[in-house]
């Protein structure tokens, strides 16, 4: 199915320039199809005691890449499963050592954490480089050009700045991370630029802060109401603990509702900003995520996954990928044919750092 070509509505009135075309990302994965891939992956992983997980990872990622389509072409993921397996074994060894150290020698565990902390910029750059290098669109490779030094500044030094400013620098840091990720990305020979300003990030965080304050007050009043009503019916035996237990459930619900919505505000608005500021030569993006849409999507998916005891996970993954693709549009000034392949670097990047980043659940916002 070729993507619909829509008229470019907000083009400047320059009649001489060719009209840029506006193309929407498409996601063509199907829940039923992906369920079968997912469960066979899971089964083979279990039966092979985890060895197959590396092949499963490549197959899963490939499914999502290939079904994410732009201008009729899917993305390609070319990582070697064997490299991922080796990376996993190393991460596994480190994880086991850390778990044992944590139980028996706190000093050793602390030393390992420090080591991990200091290695994190290296790991971030390596994993980004591995993933970019193994991603292609129309046969042209992506590339990550970030340096360890800049990664150390963004991921180690700037969090300190955020801490000493009591979080006032957090929105700036968020944008700076986006800059690090985007401005160091190249598609073939075309390097992206990220001309950004912090005000949008500050507005997103301010709105989220407002949500927490207002939502928090509403939640406190609501919880007090529930507990008060229940308290009237509680008999003399142990009123304190009964009220306590009754308060816990609505408090948890309130907590997740308020913080969930605030997180959705930040996620939706900053993702939109990230795409607005990202420019490849001749190509701009337009992302239209909405906080309400994100909340509804994750709520829907969470309920389905819980009700199906996890079997609904593939369905949820497809919904999320589809939502993201459908809210991202590309504006190309003169089509997509002019990109050129870059020379390949000689050094072979392994999957170790990538696996380390996944294994210890570091999310760099990719």
């Amino acid at each position, binding site marked *: 199915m070729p993507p619909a070509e829509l008229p470019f509505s907000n083009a400047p009135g320059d009649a001489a320039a060719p009209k840029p075309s506006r193309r929407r990302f498409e996601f063509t994965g*199907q829940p039923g199809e992906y369920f079968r891939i997912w469960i066979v992956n899971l089964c083979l992983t*279990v039966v092979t*005691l*985890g060895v197959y997980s590396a092949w499963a990872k490549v197959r899963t990622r490939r499914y999502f890449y*290939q079904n994410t389509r732009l201008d009729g*072409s899917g993305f390609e993921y070319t990582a070697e499963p064997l490299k991922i397996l080796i990376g996993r074994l190393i991460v596994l060894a480190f994880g086991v050592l850390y778990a044992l150290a944590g139980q028996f020698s706190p000093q050793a565990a602390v030393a390992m954490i420090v080591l991990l902390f200091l290695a994190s910029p290296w790991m971030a750059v390596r994993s980004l480089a591995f993933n970019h290098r193994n991603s292609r669109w129309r046969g042209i490779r992506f590339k990550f050009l970030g340096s360890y030094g800049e990664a150390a500044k963004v991921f180690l030094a700037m969090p300190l700045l955020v801490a000493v400013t009591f979080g006032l620098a957090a929105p700036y840091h968020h944008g700076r991370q986006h800059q690090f990720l985007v401005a160091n990305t190249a598609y073939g020979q075309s390097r992206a630029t990220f001309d950004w300003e912090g005000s949008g990030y500050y507005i997103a965080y301010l709105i989220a802060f407002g949500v927490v304050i207002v939502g928090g007050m509403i939640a406190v009043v609501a919880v007090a109401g529930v507990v008060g009503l229940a308290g009237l019916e509680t008999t003399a035996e142990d009123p304190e603990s009964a009220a306590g237990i009754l308060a816990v459930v609505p408090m948890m619900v309130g907590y997740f509702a308020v913080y969930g919505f605030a997180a959705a505000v930040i996620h939706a608005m900053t993702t939109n900003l990230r795409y607005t500021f990202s420019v490849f030569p001749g190509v701009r993006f337009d992302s239209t995520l909405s906080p309400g849409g994100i909340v509804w999507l994750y709520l829907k998916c969470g309920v389905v996954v819980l009700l199906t005891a996890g079997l609904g996970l593939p369905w949820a993954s497809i919904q999320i990928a589809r939502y993201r693709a459908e809210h991202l549009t590309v504006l190309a000034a003169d089509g997509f*044919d002019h990109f050129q392949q870059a020379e390949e670097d000689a050094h072979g990047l392994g999957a170790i750092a990538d696996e380390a980043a996944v294994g210890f659940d570091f999310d760099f916002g990719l």
Partner: protein
Amino acid sequence: MRVSGRYFDGTSSRAIVVEVVAYAGHLRIQGEGVDREIELAAITASERLGSTARILRLSGEATLELPDSDELEAVLRPATIHGAPRFVFGLERHWLAVCVAVAITLAVGWLVVVDGVPALASYVAHRVPADIATELGRGTLEALDEQVFGATELDAESRGNFRDRFEVLAAEASLEIAPRLEFRAGLGVGANAFALPSGIVVVTDELVMLAEREEEVVAVMAHEIGHVRHRHGLRSVLQSVGIGVLVAGALGDFVSVGSVAGALPLLLVQMQYSQGFESEADAYGGDLLEAVGLDREHLATALERLAADSGADAVPGYLSTHPATDERVQAIRGAAARSVDR
């Protein structure tokens, strides 16, 4: 076979529509400005995956994108496949195989979690030499002293007395890892007792105060020696490492460990493991009491007193690290009845 596809020369992002014909072990690719022939054996093709297109890597950087079909798969026999082996796609395509996969996954997952991990942890824990186990646990008490306990305020006479009674139990048990007794002020944890992997048994001042008879404290010590005997400290560490590794390593792609959906079952499983340990320690502790000429009823009394003191059992049994006190007390009294019968 004749099929149309898209050709990318690997130097530019321009898509060229091509006609592809397969014959005698070769592919002939023809389109605007493209006319090449390539041996099938020299091609690397992406694995078959759902209904996605096949991407064929030709010599160098050039790629060819073709719609997937059984016919194409047959043509690609001589090509190298990048990714999972060919049979995987066959499994995904048949609903029967998919149903079997669901069943196997659930069954194996259940077996591994309920029997496999505890059995493996027990096997490993009992084969760790005693001196290494002691060495490994050296730092644990120091860490607990810093974070949880205070210094004991029991008088020396009382401590000496309990120490003597503990030695009687330890001598009767005659374990590879020699149990050692320590007293601490429990502070936050209140009336409680702990067995550490190094064989150290910690009894809190609050527990001694709470007990109405000395034998109740001795009974709790016997229970803790049961933990030492069965190496529960080491086993629980190994089990949580095992389960964590399983979830993170094998299922990391399928369930995010950080998500509640992943963490909750993990917690429940570990609580079930812990309940098993408590029952094992109760049984051993009861036997040990009888072996030194005490009534195992003291353990039942002590448990009931501890439960009343902490207001435990407010949470349902499956949410607890310890089995419900009623069940434990019944199990101990049941064992007492059986030993009288003998």
